């Protein structure tokens, strides 16, 4: 049942990431990558953002968002590669690259959020 357990775990991470990404990413992407750079809305100051990031709750929030979203990507992208490019025979490499990428990204997020304040 080892493989079943893996799949169940990855699917839970994928689903949780799907929910988090669906609820949170559009607004953040819109604000930080479109509205502020284009001057549609006044961009928050460096100090304001630092004050926010110093709050432990905000740091936990950002960590969860990054981690789950990355696992969401890893799972979906893995299957898209299988199906879209018909490369299921490269299973092991794809598996390692996708989930490995998610793990590394999560570690980077943890490091940055731990050391930022």
């Amino acid at each position, binding site marked *: *049942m080892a*493989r079943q357990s893996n*799949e*169940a*775990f990855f*699917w839970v991470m994928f689903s949780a990431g799907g929910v988090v990404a669906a609820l949170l990413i559009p607004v953040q992407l819109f604000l930080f990558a479109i509205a502020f750079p284009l001057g549609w809305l006044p961009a928050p100051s460096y100090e304001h953002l630092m004050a926010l990031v110093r709050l432990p709750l905000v740091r936990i929030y950002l960590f969860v968002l990054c981690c789950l979203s990355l696992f969401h990507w890893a799972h979906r992208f893995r299957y898209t590669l299988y*199906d879209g490019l018909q490369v*299921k025979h490269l299973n092991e490499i794809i598996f390692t690259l996708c989930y490995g990428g998610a793990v590394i990204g999560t570690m980077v997020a943890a490091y940055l959020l731990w050391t930022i304040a």
Partner: protein
Amino acid sequence: MEMAETITLEIARYSPEQDTAPHFQSFEVPVHKEWVVLDALNHIKDREDGTLTYRWSCRMGICGSCGMMVNGEPKLTCATFLADYATKGSKIRVEPLRYFPVIRDLVTELGDFLGKLKKVKPWLIHPSQAPLSQGEFLQTPAQLERYKQFSMCINCTLCYAACPVFGLDPIFVGPAALALAQRYNMDSRDQGSGERIAVLAHPDGIWGCTFVGECTRVCPKHVDPAGAIQQYKLTAVFEWLKSFITPKGQDI
């Protein structure tokens, strides 16, 4: 739009004794308001070409044998009217259901599918046989409602012809078989979910499904196999979590 009096059917022909690949043959058939694609095929077989080969039986959406690709879409040909395609100059392309090996003309090989059906144990599993005197296993309307939708499947395999996951790797257990397993898992009279989980919660079972959703869209009986599979994924996760708190040896 004006309905044409006749329409051209382009039918995929494959004779395993002579051909290495299918080719198309055109037939002109009359269009009547009540004629379905299957009527046109029967018209051709009866009057023009007795070698045209296809499966059919009940002619009313119950037997599930007349599924074919009609203009690239998996359809029950007994419920697909010529008139819906019959504008002037239009053609209807009839092919065997996609992703299956073809035995001849429009006939697909079903051995693999039937094997998968059997694998998910689609019958009521009850540990003890109750004596006849105890009467029937009763069920409330609410209990029936939980699985009724999944029980409407007629095994027409349209959902497999719609499923790219199955098309890319036929090892995938596939929509109808997984939905049928869920039909029994959700039945209050069944206690066999523990016996099915090994086949279902497997990389070639539910975890292979990427929720394309095409199976549900093409299902002529509104079974919603895609929904059944996602619902089972949640169940499988709970079973997986439960395996941490149940003592070892009681593997699910």
